[in-house]
């Protein structure tokens, strides 16, 4: 990346503007994750409703980013670092929009779950998992601002922990459901929530990879260790 300015200063302002939109989106998504987790934890349906409503702001920002990027490409024919900037901005905004959707889904399920008896032990695990993903998102956005490849790589590696947490929850939910079929409805919702948080982690990982591409010009190609074994599980002890 370059510190020196473009000869056409409007180009600088355009690039700064679209990156500012990304940071604004990032802030809204961080809040959405934290609030969705809090609402679930405290059975706070009002806060859950607020998360669902605020997702519209995130969606609107994604559209702004797409339109701005299209305009920059059409008018400026960006090359090299500028090109990577607009490409990564576009992908990161799509990742953030998806994470926002998952947070919204969490909030939706909160209103159902708040009507049911709590599933023992699940609250704490989901809280920890959400906190992890929230921190990863914060770090990936910091890595973006600082153009920090090491931090981005660190975030990428941390996704394995989230996968492990999801595996553990998957086993727990299976156990609860087998013990008492009355747990099935709640556990199904909780399982979707856990899965959605795990997916958030994947999108955060993708943001980190975009940071690495932005700085180095290359996508990281070494395989990360995948810790999600649930696709092959038929019983709690296999996951």
């Amino acid at each position: 990346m370059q510190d020196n300015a473009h000869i056409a200063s409007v180009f600088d302002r355009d690039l700064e503007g679209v990156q500012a939109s990304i940071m604004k989106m990032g802030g809204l998504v961080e809040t959405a994750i934290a609030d969705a987790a809090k609402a679930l934890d405290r059975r706070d349906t009002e806060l859950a409703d607020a998360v669902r409503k605020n997702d519209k702001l995130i969606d609107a920002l994604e559209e702004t980013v797409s339109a701005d990027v299209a305009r920059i490409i059409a008018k400026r024919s960006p090359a090299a670092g500028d090109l990577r900037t607009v490409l990564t901005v576009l992908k990161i905004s799509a990742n953030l929009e998806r994470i926002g959707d998952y947070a919204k889904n969490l909030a939706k399920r909160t209103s159902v779950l708040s009507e049911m008896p709590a599933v023992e032990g699940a609250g704490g695990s989901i809280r920890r998992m959400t906190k992890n993903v929230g921190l990863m998102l914060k770090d990936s956005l910091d890595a973006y601002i600082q153009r920090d490849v090491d931090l981005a790589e660190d975030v990428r590696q941390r996704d394995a922990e989230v996968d492990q947490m999801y595996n553990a929850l998957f086993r727990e939910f299976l156990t609860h459901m087998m013990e008492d079929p009355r747990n099935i409805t709640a556990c199904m919702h909780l399982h979707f929530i856990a899965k959605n948080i795990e997916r958030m982690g994947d999108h955060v990982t993708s943001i980190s990879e975009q940071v690495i591409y932005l700085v180095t010009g290359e996508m990281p190609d070494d395989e990360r260790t995948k810790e999600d074994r649930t696709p092959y599980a038929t019983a709690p002890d296999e996951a």
Partner: protein
Amino acid sequence: MSDEIKIAAKGVDVFYGDTHAIKSVDVEIDDKAVTSFIGPSGCGKSTFLRCINRMNDTIDVCRVTGDIRLEGQDIYDKDVDPVQLRARVGMVFQKPNPFPKSIYENVAYGPKIHGLAKDKTELDEIVEKSLRRAAIWDEVKDRLDQPGTGLSGGQQQRLCIGRAIATAPEVLLMDEPCSALDPIATAQVEELIDELRASYTVVIVTHSMQQAARVSQKTAFFHLGELVEYGETDRIFTNPVDSRTESYITGRIG
């Protein structure tokens, strides 16, 4: 693109009197490919281009040192006849410059003086083939006897390319061939350049970064007489190594 090197330059320096215009340039230009030279005005890209067919010989104060080889042969060797060299290494200039003669004569002139046709039939064939390759035959075939200067700018430039092709060169040097043309004529010339690379080694100097990105397989960035960076065009325009290259192609103050 073949993998062969058509032109190899090593340690080339050019001086205009006391001015050191090209500083120790090494470059290998691929056969049957388009190579573009980019860089700010005065960076030496045109000067270097002109070394490849010894156009600088015509400038008294200009001195070229170092080694430039065309298929292994030193083009500055005293046994090399610059006129013969220029038949092998053709040139197209910034402003279309047809001779003040008919369209036919513009193209036929080179083959005639180089004795490439033994009779009128053969000469007719060369003219038609050259104008077809220059993608202008259909537009001029019914008015070959009319002056070349009467054509539009874009047609004149394609006529000049046809004229350059007529002597059956191996290399085509183009110095800003589209800078005097409108976008449509530019697109036609660019399309033509892409077709020409099947048969020729093309080296193009251009101020349009997008043109370099569009037409060439390799790009060389010159700055203050130095060859700063040279490589695959795709890489240069997505991930240049040198910060000076990045500054230039992204339109920054270097």
